[in-house]
């Protein structure tokens, strides 16, 4: 693809400084080819259409801006859920404070180990799904990740995992600039839930590649919070086989900059993909900017995809949604649904949305909707007329607004946990 000189010149310093880590044969090759495509693409700048609503500067500059650690007494999310916990400290896996990496129907290995080997199944996924997701839109930060990552988990699921796997991030440094790359391979009939929580680093570049074979199911629930000054770019690349299922939910609470990209390729018939998110931002003490960018490609018959995004914004907070459904020729009976909504709690915040449909098949049902609005006055009066004070009534209506996104979380226990967190946040951030 054509790259203008001016564009590649800007973050040259960062690119020049990148040296791919040495590993086993497959990993070295994958990293090298990612570095080549990164140099071809160049890092994103404010002039890129895909970065129109979100400034990439903090994500592309040579050194991460330091971020203070947040002191909190609140227990970590998911702590009451029976899970296999893998802990990353400042973006580095720490086996000593993690659970045993052993569970029925699941193989887990740190990326560092897998990358040392000359032959590994991860070769068919690592950077492969990311590379596939580079067209038609470039995602240079993901290529940067593939080229440089040494940290992450490599997970293979062969049957129904007895409990969720939780990637638990902990921060101890104010300057950590982390690159983490996870791979999940769900074999035919496999079924696993992946949880992610905790502050990862002052700056984090995270990639998750998920390959789901026929009949496989992947559930993903992640929370991003507890660090107001965080700058994060997270990419999910998923490839779906026949009758497979992919469901991902993200909760974003606070954060100076969070860009969540999700690229889903539906390649097998009768498959299902859901990507949902709830974001709550209050710009009162720290800036808040949260961006969900989704690209779903339907390339099979009779598949369904759902995108449900809700953002609650106040005090100068910004929410962004860019969502596209591409229905390829022949992908008949596609059912694509997309909704993105912003709830403004004052006049200072903004919600920027760009919903897109591109359809090359004639027997499909695709819908997209995007709204922005304030608290409904009639609903507020109804609650207050029953004796509920204004602040509490407003809280109830905020939860009501977010409910549709939370309902996309299948597991009730996890959903309740997330709901509780939101309730607490909303109460803390009452006007």
């Amino acid at each position, binding site marked *: 693809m054509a790259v203008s000189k001016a564009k590649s010149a800007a973050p040259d310093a960062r690119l020049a400084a990148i040296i791919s880590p040495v590993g086993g044969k497959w990993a070295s090759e994958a990293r090298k080819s990612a570095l080549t495509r990164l140099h071809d693409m160049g890092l994103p700048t404010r002039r890129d259409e895909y970065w129109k609503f979100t400034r990439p500067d903090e994500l592309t500059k040579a050194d991460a801006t330091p971020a203070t650690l947040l002191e909190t007494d609140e227990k970590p999310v998911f702590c009451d859920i029976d899970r296999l916990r893998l802990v990353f400290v400042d973006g580095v896996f720490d086996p000593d404070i993690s659970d045993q990496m052993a569970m029925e129907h699941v193989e887990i290995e740190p990326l560092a180990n897998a990358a040392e080997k000359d032959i590994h199944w991860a070769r068919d996924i690592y950077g492969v799904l990311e590379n596939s997701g580079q067209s038609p839109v470039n995602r240079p930060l993901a290529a940067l990740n593939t080229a440089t990552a040494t940290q992450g988990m490599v997970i293979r699921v062969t049957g129904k995992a007895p409990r969720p796997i939780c990637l638990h991030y902990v921060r101890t440094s104010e300057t950590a600039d982390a690159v983490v790359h996870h791979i999940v391979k769900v074999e035919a009939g496999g079924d696993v839930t992946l949880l992610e929580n905790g502050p990862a680093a002052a700056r984090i570049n995270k990639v998750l590649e998920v390959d789901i074979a026929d009949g496989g199911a992947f559930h993903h629930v992640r929370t991003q919070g507890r660090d107001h000054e965080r700058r994060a770019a997270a990419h999910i690349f998923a490839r779906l086989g026949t009758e497979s299922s992919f469901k991902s939910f993200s909760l974003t609470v606070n954060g100076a900059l969070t860009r969540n990209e999700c690229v889903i390729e539906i390649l097998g018939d009768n498959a299902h993909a859901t990507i949902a998110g709830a974001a709550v931002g209050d710009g009162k003490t720290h800036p808040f900017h949260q961006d969900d960018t989704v690209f779903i490609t339907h390339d099979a018959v009779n598949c369904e995809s759902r995108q449900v995004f809700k953002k609650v914004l106040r005090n100068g907070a910004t929410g962004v949604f860019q969502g596209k459904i591409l229905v390829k020729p022949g992908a008949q009976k596609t059912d694509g649904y997309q909704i993105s909504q912003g709830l403004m709690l004052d006049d200072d915040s903004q919600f920027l949305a760009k919903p897109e449909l591109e359809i090359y098949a004639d027997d499909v049902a695709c819908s997209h909707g995007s709204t922005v609005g304030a608290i409904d006055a009639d609903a507020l009066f*109804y609650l207050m007329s029953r*004796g509920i004070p204004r602040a509490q009534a407003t809280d109830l209506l905020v939860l009501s607004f977010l409910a549709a996104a939370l309902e996309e979380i299948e597991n009730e226990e996890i959903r309740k946990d997330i709901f509780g967190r939101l309730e607490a946040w909303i109460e803390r951030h009452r006007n």
Partner: protein
Amino acid sequence: MLKIENLQVKLEEEDKQILKGLSLTVPSGEVHAIMGPNGSGKSTMSYVLSGKGGYEVTGGSATLDGVDLLAMEPEERAAAGLFLAFQYPVEIPGVGNMTFLRTAVNSQRKSRGEDEMSAAEFLKVIRAKAKSLKIDAEMLKRPVNVGFSGGEKKRNEILQMAMLEPKMCVLDETDSGLDVDAMKLVAEGVNALRDGKRSFLVITHYQRLLDHIKPDVVHIMADGRIIKSGGPELALEVENNGYADLLAEVA
């Protein structure tokens, strides 16, 4: 006792007077009905009493047991004992009916300095009250009014009234959109709350509701004020002859 004196109300957004000197007294324990042609200001009166935004009071007063209603926030009016059964109950997705009701009951108790109701106690009370209104457990769990039929919404209003135990209940066209059986059920719910102390102000277009909820006094409202008051026979007169004669009398 609800006492409205010479109440004058205009719309906030435009220079349109809706209530033009409304006076009305509902002594405690009594049931009063208000009838009147469309646009006479009946619903506006109920909204102004309960504190909905968009209206400006330009004169007069409204008190409940001597307390100035108009100076209070909507939730304070509720805690003071006023309840409005909505003509169009609002749907609130994602908030369970039970959660909503418990929050409401406990908010009111808290503001009156009473102890909050425990979850167990609340459950016991609501189950008994819901049963008499034929509201099943499923309806209590569902989000507030979402997917409820017209009849279910109105029964849900009466359930809220039963749980909140107000002193003064204003029912805004609670019979609209109800079939005969649903209307009976709602009327039974209202009658069950008549205890000789609680007062009711029933806004309706039809005499039929008043067959089930027997009023002590019937008021006819037109052009923002009460033009005639009388016994239950007044409702029958309206049912048979319409408002034309009454309006002509005043003119």
